[in-house]
């Protein structure tokens, strides 16, 4: 029988390697013939390690599994969760970007192709560069890395630039707390990212690509490197892509533990071997990027969504979503949440649906106090904002941002004063140092919040002024957006700072 045991970091973090070892050794002892496939995760982290057995009856899931469950699993006496596709959390999703993640062996190119892989690339190979860019524009895809910039527009800028060398750079720095979609995708379906990068190369006329992958993701680094080797051996990368005479190749580069290197210009500096400081824009990276050449910088999820857009057509993709937020969003339910994991669905569900219905509320069973959406630079939202639909403009109007679509849930034991202080501390630790409001302001911010929390209410207007200065005087969103978590915490939960609503002027 075939047994799927995820190699995904979250599954491994919860004991998947031990389960795999236990299966091998028990099977050997009991004389049961098993084939273990290390797949990606199906995204239901509370059920990890989630193991699936495939036999004549189809594919049945078991989890969360510990090595002690292995004898019952192999003897057929363990109670199954049924088919993954029938588990409510999974059944409610629209899986486009993550269609194959957890389903296939991530390094089996044949299985990748059998599940729709390479279909998008083959179609793109039959199109002109301009048509390829137009297809992306028609899909309505907006960058999933944070800013939501239209991907087609970015590609068109690079396509129409004249240069001897252009580049595709994949931003796989995923530094935001509460996010793990990039990691899951790279570990579970690396070829979709590679295929997306090849299509991007065809579209803009780039022959070289880099994946800038954070060092905190050792499993993703290993899987991506192996996938690139396999892709080269099978002409998915190299001088002669699928026998068409077109060239494109990819290298995996590892970051070095600096959050700010997720910002695209800092990332390019880092890739060039420099300090990861932010560059002033303009010039745009699209025109003056890696090595001064026109460069597409896109997030992992943006690029990995490209193949499915080409496979089913732009109109199919654009039919999902609401308003100007087209297609699917790969939500990540994180923190103190009962059902944590990856949930892909069309834009438009409300925040409350996601946190309460899908996520099941908090893991501790206590009331939800706050949800931080969009990572450390995103606002803390109160349950009275739960009606907000998940969409770029909709969140903007509610004073929040979607960012990379991570949702971190806090129960009523959270201290919003401490979290605000942490937001400033994080900015101080990770600042690239280029602008004074960010470099110095964040340290002053830590001190000022500490003063307020110690009862000095006169420091409130100081903090508000400081946040204004950081917002207006910072070159990038690290300094510029840190005021969002800080002020949303202060305004939303003044009692956690020991002050009354009336004392908070904004």
């Amino acid at each position, binding site marked *: 029988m075939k047994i799927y045991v995820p190699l995904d970091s979250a599954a491994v973090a919860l004991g998947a390697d031990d389960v795999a070892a236990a299966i091998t050794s028990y099977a050997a002892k009991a004389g049961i013939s098993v084939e273990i496939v290390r797949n990606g995760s199906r995204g239901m982290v509370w059920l990890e390690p989630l193991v699936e057995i495939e036999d004549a009856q189809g594919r049945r899931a078991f989890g969360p599994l510990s090595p002690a469950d292995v004898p019952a699993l192999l003897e057929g006496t363990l109670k199954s969760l049924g088919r993954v596709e029938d588990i409510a959390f999974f059944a409610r999703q629209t899986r486009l970007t993550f269609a194959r993640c957890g389903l296939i062996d991530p390094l089996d190119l044949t299985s990748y192709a059998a599940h729709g892989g390479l279909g998008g690339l083959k179609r793109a190979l039959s199109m002109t560069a301009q048509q390829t860019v137009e297809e992306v524009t028609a899909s309505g895809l907006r960058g999933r890395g944070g800013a939501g910039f239209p991907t087609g527009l970015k590609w068109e800028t690079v396509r129409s630039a004249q240069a001897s060398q252009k580049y595709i750079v994949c931003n796989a720095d995923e*530094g935001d707390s509460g996010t793990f979609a990039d990691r899951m995708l790279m570990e579970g379906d690396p070829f979709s990212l590679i295929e997306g990068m090849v299509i991007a190369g065809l579209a803009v006329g780039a022959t070289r690509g880099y994946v800038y992958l954070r060092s905190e993701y050792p499993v993703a680094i290993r899987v991506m490197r192996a996938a690139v080797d396999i892709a080269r051996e099978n002409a998915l990368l190299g001088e002669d892509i699928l026998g068409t005479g077109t060239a494109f190749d990819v290298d995996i*580069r590892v970051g070095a*533990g*600096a959050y700010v290197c997720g910002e695209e210009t800092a990332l390019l500096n880092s890739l*060039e071997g420099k300090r990861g400081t932010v560059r002033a824009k303009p010039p745009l990276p699209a025109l003056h990027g890696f090595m001064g050449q026109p460069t597409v910088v896109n997030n992992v999820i943006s690029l990995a969504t490209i193949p499915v857009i080409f496979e089913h057509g732009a109109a199919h993709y654009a039919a999902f979503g609401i308003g100007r937020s087209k297609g699917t969003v790969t939500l990540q339910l994180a923190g103190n949440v009962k059902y944590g994991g990856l949930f892909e669905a069309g834009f438009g569900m409300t925040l409350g649906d996601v946190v309460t219905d899908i996520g099941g509320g908090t893991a501790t069973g206590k009331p939800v106090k706050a949800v931080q959406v969009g990572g450390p630079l995103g606002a803390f939202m109160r349950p009275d904002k739960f009606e907000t639909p998940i969409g770029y403009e909709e969140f903007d109007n509610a004073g929040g941002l979607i960012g990379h679509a991570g949702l971190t849930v806090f129960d009523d034991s959270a201290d919003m004063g401490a979290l605000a202080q942490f937001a400033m501390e994080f900015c101080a*630790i990770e600042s690239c140092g280029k602008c004074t409001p960010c470099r110095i302001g964040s340290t002053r911010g830590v001190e000022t919040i500490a003063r307020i929390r110690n009862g000095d209410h006169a420091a409130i207007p100081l903090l508000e002024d400081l946040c204004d200065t950081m917002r207006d005087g910072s070159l990038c969103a690290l300094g510029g957006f840190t005021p969002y978590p800080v002020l949303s915490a202060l305004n939303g939960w003044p009692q956690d700072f020991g002050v009354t609503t009336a004392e908070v002027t904004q």
Partner: protein
Amino acid sequence: MSATDPTDDTLSRLIARHRDCEGPLLPILHDMMEAFGHIDEGTYPQLGRALGITRAEIHGVVSFYHDFKTRPNGHHTIKLCRAEACQSVGATETQSALFDRLGLTDFGTTPDGRITVEAVYCLGLCACGPAALVDTQPRGRVSAQSLATEVGA
């Protein structure tokens, strides 16, 4: 590192492996971390000559990134996540308990030089926090006890 140091050869090999790629410095520094456990200032002249950059530039890069260390870590390294999602499930308390258990007052290396505890900000394990990397092994729902046991403390 002196000219007679046996690692000199290793360094030349590491440099040769990457020098023709675009932006070779970070890949070389990563390989040096792996081979030597830290980055010795004594290597800057050789590196600088090979890549056509100054000592100051190398120092600037090494000091910018959290991953590059100028002194070796302990025998085991625990990277403990301090970021928001892990805080929401008690990472701050886990951190204090781990410090108590190892006799640390802050992030750093234990007095016996065996174990280094570093702060990290998210490991992508935010739905199963508190999270850590023990050497390079991802660990979820950790406690001070589970971490200490794993590194034999």
